[in-house]
């Protein structure tokens, strides 16, 4: 036993601290102090992180008066504009094709319907992911 006094845990367990040289004792004490300091530091870091997170959440929760109304208004307007833009884009493409091939009103009708479908598709996409947050980032 006396020959393995240098290996920390085993030596300490069976009260063999008398066998440790003074330097090793001092090093052990230093290690312990360092570990305690590290623990304290990481604890305070964690606490600060938590506080930051809380503050951020609180800031997100704080609403300007009428803020909800404004957000709802802007979302509603966004959905409206996405829908109308789909129809306009489809109609414009159809109208142009008709003008080029002088087939009025075949393409206008076809692309008008397709544009309406595209408008619904746009609205569906907005409704599925209104803030445009990345899906893979969310999934992580």
């Amino acid at each position, binding site marked *: 036993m006396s020959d393995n006094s240098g290996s920390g845990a085993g030596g300490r367990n069976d009260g063999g601290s008398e066998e440790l040289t003074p330097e090793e004792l001092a090093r052990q004490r230093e290690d312990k102090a360092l570990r305690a300091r590290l623990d304290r530091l990481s604890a305070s870091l964690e606490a600060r992180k938590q506080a930051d997170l809380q503050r951020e959440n609180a800031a997100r929760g704080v609403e300007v008066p009428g803020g909800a109304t*404004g957000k709802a208004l802007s979302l509603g307007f966004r959905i409206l504009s996405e829908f109308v833009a789909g129809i306009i884009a489809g109609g414009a493409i159809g109208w142009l094709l008709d003008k080029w091939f002088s087939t009025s009103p075949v393409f206008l009708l076809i692309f008008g319907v397709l544009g309406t479908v595209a408008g619904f598709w746009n609205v569906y996409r907005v409704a599925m992911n209104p803030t*445009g947050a990345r899906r893979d980032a969310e999934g992580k």
Partner: protein
Amino acid sequence: MAAEGKAIDPIHQFEIQNIVPIKMFGMDLSFTNASLFMVIILAAVWFLMVYGTRNRELVPGKLQSAAEMSYEFVANTIRGTAGNDGMRFFPFVFSLFMFVLFANLIGLIPYSFTVTSQIVVTFAFAALVILTVILYGIYKHGLHWFRLFVPSGVSPVMLPFLVMIEVISFVSRPISLSVRLFANMLAGHITLKVFGGFVTMLLASGAWAALAPLPLAGVVAISALELLVAVLQAYVFTILTCVYLNDAIHPGH
């Protein structure tokens, strides 16, 4: 406000007026009130960003923290929607955001001109965004980028139909992007003017003047709402720009 005599013209505020007429190469390149306000907007953004950060203090002052906050805000928006790769577009997105935000906010000042209430301006921005998306997408991914329009896992019968819908949906993006901003600004400013006009009309109509405070309260409320709309629309414009740029960087959904 707009009541000169009895004519209240809520559209008058959007008229383009020549300040310095310039005719060059057969084109009308006059310096108009719109140009003037664009210069004012650029000066305001420049003041905030350059003058605000001139000292680079460790503990930022008011202007410096406003500049830093706008930087952080746009950077977080880009990272959240387009990932870290999106940060190469930061200068572009940041310039767009600051210009639109300042245009909207400066437009709220009475007697000023709202640049973003002109669809030419907003459509130019939207077209710039979409052109960037297309050109960068093709530059980065080559012809593979066009897979964006081909949804995966669809039966071959439905495929041409769905591709067409995707293409129309893509074409509709610059339209919705520009019309949304333009229409919000136009409608808000017209509403403000009309309500302001009600106040002066009521005040000029004898006993009905007792009702004048009602539309005045409306003007105050709508002004607050417009302030919110101005910031929100700048934000919506920015976030959608990022979403579209994301399609150029990562076309595989």
